[in-house]
């Protein structure tokens, strides 16, 4: 079996479509990482933005309470009014917090600019701040923790985009596996050998799944590496997801930190990938050319998204939300799965487990269907 798997992997690696797709994907990956981490808003005009950001974050990290918010905003308006407007870098960290806590009755930036024109400054006490309770942040036994969140939001965005890249690349790999042999008219030869139906099918499934997993690990590995350079390590990992002001998940009902959210996202993506691989392999086993296999598999991958534009409530909508294309973005799965009207169950963790079980079941069913199909394969 190991020998057959080795040959099957080699067949995929030697395929020109795969090689071409891999090269293009490397460019896309570089683009995603470059735009996500190097060309990020945080860098500012003079590219010292990340450095300044971390200085501000360091001072602001800690238990999330009204006093800390007040301190952050005090420093923010102080810096804002002391800097020359032309040299002032955009402090995205404090801006997001200000945007959340400062009431919208008056534009605080107009207030500060007017005061500065008159050689004056406004103080925090002159600004109306909302309290944590007023905004309705979720509460747990342990208080929420505040820390770096802008970089993590960028990380989540990159992770979302990588899922699409990995999915399409895996679809491309898997759609070749069976249909390529069919289009070459190799099936009469392969399927008339002793191991051509059972072991070969299992070997093809193992090879395609392994290559997809390797791509997943490699791409996410690179992404994690690039993030650690961008973020100067993993600072902010233990900040509560509710205090990621860029994501506005203040009421998210489960006590999770940003690292845990990332781990859940990666786990969900991994299981989704297995389902995508299994479905694509099945499509590949029933089609006669890699191109038709690719079109059908991509169509099936995107279909649930299109259907949710038509069906926006009820059990079918809930069912559609179980598919990867509808729940892969980090913010989407956190919000969808914590709302009863979007999902089958009332609690986030229940919905997450349900989704994972559903996707694992899909993967198992389609892997089995591929095996059965090739075991009993008959030419038309």
């Amino acid at each position, binding site marked *: 079996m190991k*020998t*057959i798997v080795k*040959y099957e992997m*080699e*067949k995929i690696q*030697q395929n020109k479509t795969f090689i071409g797709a891999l090269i293009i994907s490397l460019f896309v990956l570089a683009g995603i990482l470059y735009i996500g981490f190097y060309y990020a808003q945080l860098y500012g005009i003079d590219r010292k933005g990340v450095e300044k950001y971390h200085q501000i974050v360091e001072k602001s990290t800690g238990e999330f309470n009204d006093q800390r918010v007040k301190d952050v905003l005090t420093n923010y308006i102080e810096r804002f009014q002391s800097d020359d407007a032309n040299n002032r870098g955009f402090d995205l960290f404090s801006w997001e917090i200000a945007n959340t806590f400062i009431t919208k009755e008056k534009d605080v930036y107009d207030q500060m600019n007017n005061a500065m024109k008159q050689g004056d400054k406004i103080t925090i006490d002159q600004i109306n701040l909302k309290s944590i309770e007023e905004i309705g942040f979720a509460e747990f036994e342990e208080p929420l923790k505040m820390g770096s969140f802008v970089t993590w939001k960028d990380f989540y965005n990159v992770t979302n985009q990588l899922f699409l890249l990995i999915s399409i690349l895996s679809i491309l790999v898997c759609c070749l596996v069976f249909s390529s042999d069919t289009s*070459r*008219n*190799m*099936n*009469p*030869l*392969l*399927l*008339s*050998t*002793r*191991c*051509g*139906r059972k*072991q*070969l099918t299992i070997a093809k499934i193992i090879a395609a799944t392994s290559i997809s997993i390797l791509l997943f690990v490699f791409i996410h590995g690179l992404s994690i590496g690039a993030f650690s350079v961008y973020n100067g390590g993993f600072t902010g990992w233990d900040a509560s997801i509710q205090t990621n002001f860029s994501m506005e998940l203040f009421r998210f009902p489960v006590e999770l930190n940003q690292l845990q959210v990332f781990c859940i996202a990666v786990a969900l993506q991994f299981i989704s990938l297995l389902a995508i691989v299994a479905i694509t392999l099945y499509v590949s086993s029933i089609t006669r050319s890699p191109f038709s296999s690719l079109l059908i598999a991509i169509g099936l991958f995107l279909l649930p998204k299109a259907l949710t534009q038509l069906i926006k409530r009820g059990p079918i909508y809930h069912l559609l939300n179980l598919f990867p294309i509808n729940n892969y973005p980090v913010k989407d799965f956190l919000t969808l799965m914590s709302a009863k009207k979007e999902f089958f169950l009332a609690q986030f963790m229940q919905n997450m487990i349900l989704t994972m079980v559903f996707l694992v079941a899909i993967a198992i069913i389609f892997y089995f269907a591929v095996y059965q199909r090739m075991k009993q*394969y*008959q*030419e038309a």
Partner: protein
Amino acid sequence: MQLELKNITKSYDDTIALNDVSFLLEPGVYGLLGSNGSGKTTLFRIISGVLKQTTGTVTYNQEDIRANSDTFRSILGFLPQDFSYYPDFTGMKFMLYIAALKGINKNFAKKRCLELLKLVGLEEVKKKKIKKYSGGMKQRLGIAQAMINDPEVLILDEPTVGLDPKERVRFRNLISSFSKNKIVILSTHIVSDIEYIADEILVLNKGTLENRGPSSELVETIHGYVWETEVENDKLNEMLMEHLISNQKHEGNRTVLRIISKDKPAPDARQVQPTLEDLYLYYFREEAER
């Protein structure tokens, strides 16, 4: 060792590809003679288990091959028609891949593959990628892969396509040396290939098994139907329109025609000894006339 087909019929919607074909094969070389679309490939695919017959059974040593497909596949060697290889595999790698699919031990497979590549004259190019092989080389590689597991039943669908005369002689010798205690079935359009090596010939016409027997016996069935006559060149077209011509040879302003006909085609026509090629034309005259 017996391979038996009983009442095999294969139909696609309103087309019958094989119609109630039955025969029993014992060790020996069998040539399947048939025109394009006569059902040869369909028959081979049914025997190799890639295609399911509509009705009928195929048994090997009295056991249904569909019910014992794993066992049957382990003693089967098959060269299908018109398949593409993996162009980036070398000849040796392709052989080892097929050996792995046939469940052959890795060390033995290497030895066996080298031996077969030498037999089919591909030893020197075994490390070259298949995309650099000529059509004849690919065909020889196909023949070699079918023999890796030393099969008891060897099915070769058009094995001599693309082979030059020297390669065809080598192929015939290879099959002859290999066929002892084995059932070898091969189809070809090149009648002489079958004539030389087949112990028996099966004539398949429009999905029906029309005749079977040793080449000499089959040829005898058209004894008295093959004629030779000389005609003036200006009467040649008339003769070509009226008769099934197996050969024509120009000699000055006259042409010697070899005609297949139950009736004497010309007053001066004389009967000649029929050949397998004449037999082919006799059975597949429609294709010849096209």
